[in-house]
């Protein structure tokens, strides 16, 4: 048996805390997102890059789905498709049910706050844009909306910093504010594109806890793109492992550790086994023997 094959075989052995999504059958509870046979190709004909190849994905309301994989595996492409920033080359993307539009919140690796607005004004921006909030924006921005923003800032540990400008805050604080902006209009779908990627380990772990808390209280559907297996297993209810060139999903599992999960749990053997399994799958699927393999 060659090494990649053996790695795949070992990875597929059952791991406590993880179970394949297929075991649930097709009954995804109240589906919110559906990618059907979606292919995305960047660039012109002969230099085209297949960012995503014939991908199928269904996500139900309230799931916290982590997309993990190396750069170029199409995980950010999936978020851009869902956010309506790009269109698929072929296939169909649907977000929401027949009841109409879904409110979406998005946060990127960079906080992308507007430098001429205070933190409060930045967080309030979606309320100015998104219906039904925008219709009442003028009347409510001083009262109800301000309370809402202050409450969110409090939850992420930013109370007292609302009147500061972005350049007066550290990277971690900006990322917290960026999360608040993604959440303020009560989105039913939250798209997070490596939101903690640029932060130091301690800030990152603290924000994991905050995000878990926010998810447990508001239960939005979250798609989290990351290349950190520990982050993915810590946060996710469901984990999709992706491989690059061409981008596709190679594994789809439910993560069934109890909540609230603690940092302590991430060092336990079951948690490590789950991380290990996901990492092995990726190592085995990449061509070449040593590239990305785990010994």
């Amino acid at each position, binding site marked *: 048996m060659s090494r990649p094959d053996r790695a795949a075989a070992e990875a597929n052995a059952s791991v406590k805390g993880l179970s394949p999504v297929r075991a649930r059958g097709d009954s995804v509870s109240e589906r919110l997102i559906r990618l059907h046979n979606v292919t995305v190709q960047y660039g012109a004909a002969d230099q085209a890059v297949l960012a995503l190849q014939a991908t199928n994905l269904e996500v139900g309301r309230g799931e916290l789905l982590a997309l993990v994989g190396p750069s170029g595996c199409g995980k950010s492409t999936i978020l851009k498709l869902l*956010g*309506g*920033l790009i269109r698929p080359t072929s296939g169909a993307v649907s977000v929401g049910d027949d009841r109409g*539009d879904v409110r*979406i*919140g*998005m946060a*990127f690796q*960079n906080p*992308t706050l*507007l*430098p*001429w607005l205070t933190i409060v004004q930045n967080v309030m*921006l*979606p309320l*100015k*844009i*998104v219906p039904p909030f925008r219709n009442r924006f003028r009347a409510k921005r001083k009262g109800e909306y301000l309370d809402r923003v202050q409450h969110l800032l409090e939850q992420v540990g930013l109370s007292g910093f609302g009147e500061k*400008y972005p*350049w007066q805050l550290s990277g971690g604080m900006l990322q917290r504010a960026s999360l608040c*902006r993604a959440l303020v*209009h009560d989105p039913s779908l939250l*798209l997070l594109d490596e939101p903690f990627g640029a932060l130091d380990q301690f800030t990152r772990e603290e924000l994991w806890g905050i995000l878990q808390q926010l998810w447990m209280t508001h239960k939005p559907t979250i798609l989290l793109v990351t290349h950190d297996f520990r982050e993915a297993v810590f946060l996710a209810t469901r984990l999709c492992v992706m491989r690059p060139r061409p981008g596709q999903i190679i594994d789809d599992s439910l993560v069934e550790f109890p909540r609230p999960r603690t940092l302590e749990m991430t060092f336990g053997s079951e948690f490590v086994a789950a991380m290990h399994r996901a990492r092995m799958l990726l190592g085995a699927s990449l061509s070449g023997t040593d590239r990305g393999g785990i010994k």
Partner: protein
Amino acid sequence: MNSIAQKLGSAVFVLLFFLIWELACLAFHVSDLVLPRPSEILVVLYTKGAGIWPHAVATLTSTVLGFVAGVMAGILLGVVIGYSKIIYDALYPTLVGFSSIPKVALVPILVLWFGAGTWPAVLTAMSMSLFPVVVNMATGLATIEPELKEIMHVLKAKPTDILWNVSLPRSLPYLFASLKVAITLAFVGAVVSETIASNKGIGNMMMIASSNFDVPLTFAGLLVLAVMGVAFYAIFAVLEARFTGWAHRGSQQ
């Protein structure tokens, strides 16, 4: 503290400049037909003030009218050009062509169309202040970080939402930088046009004074122009600091 010292420093230098001028003229017995002393110029300003005033008002009016028209047209054109790559590519060569014409050369044509007087001055001022505004506005819009727009697209913002909430505020530092240049150029345009073809304005007054060898009055006109120019610049520098402080924090902190 530091800024007070700076202001004091520049005030002292201005006074010193005039003092040296005065003393040098006295020491070397410079004729007031060549270079009048600052004290003589001040006396002229005081005695002939009532006569100078309408001219100053005329120049001020032409400059401000031309500047306002030029800036409004410039913002509009800049937004159109900065927003669409196609329009940018189509219009840019023509704009460069127009902007490279020396604006003084427009004055005879404007006189043909509108007659000598206020209108050529206003239009020259406008044509000179237009281009810096167009170029800066278009640059400001074209260099917006795509992430800022993506945030708005995800929220399904309308194009006007993006314009008011992101594009225009993000371009303000570029706009204000161009306004300081534009007001100075508008002033130059108005005075040049008055010098060539008008019967009022400081430019016209200086032409007449110089042909009468009334050198102190000519210099008095120059001083009035200098004061007006500095005042214009200062007003826009203050407005810039007020509205776009977020973009200049490095120099303030």
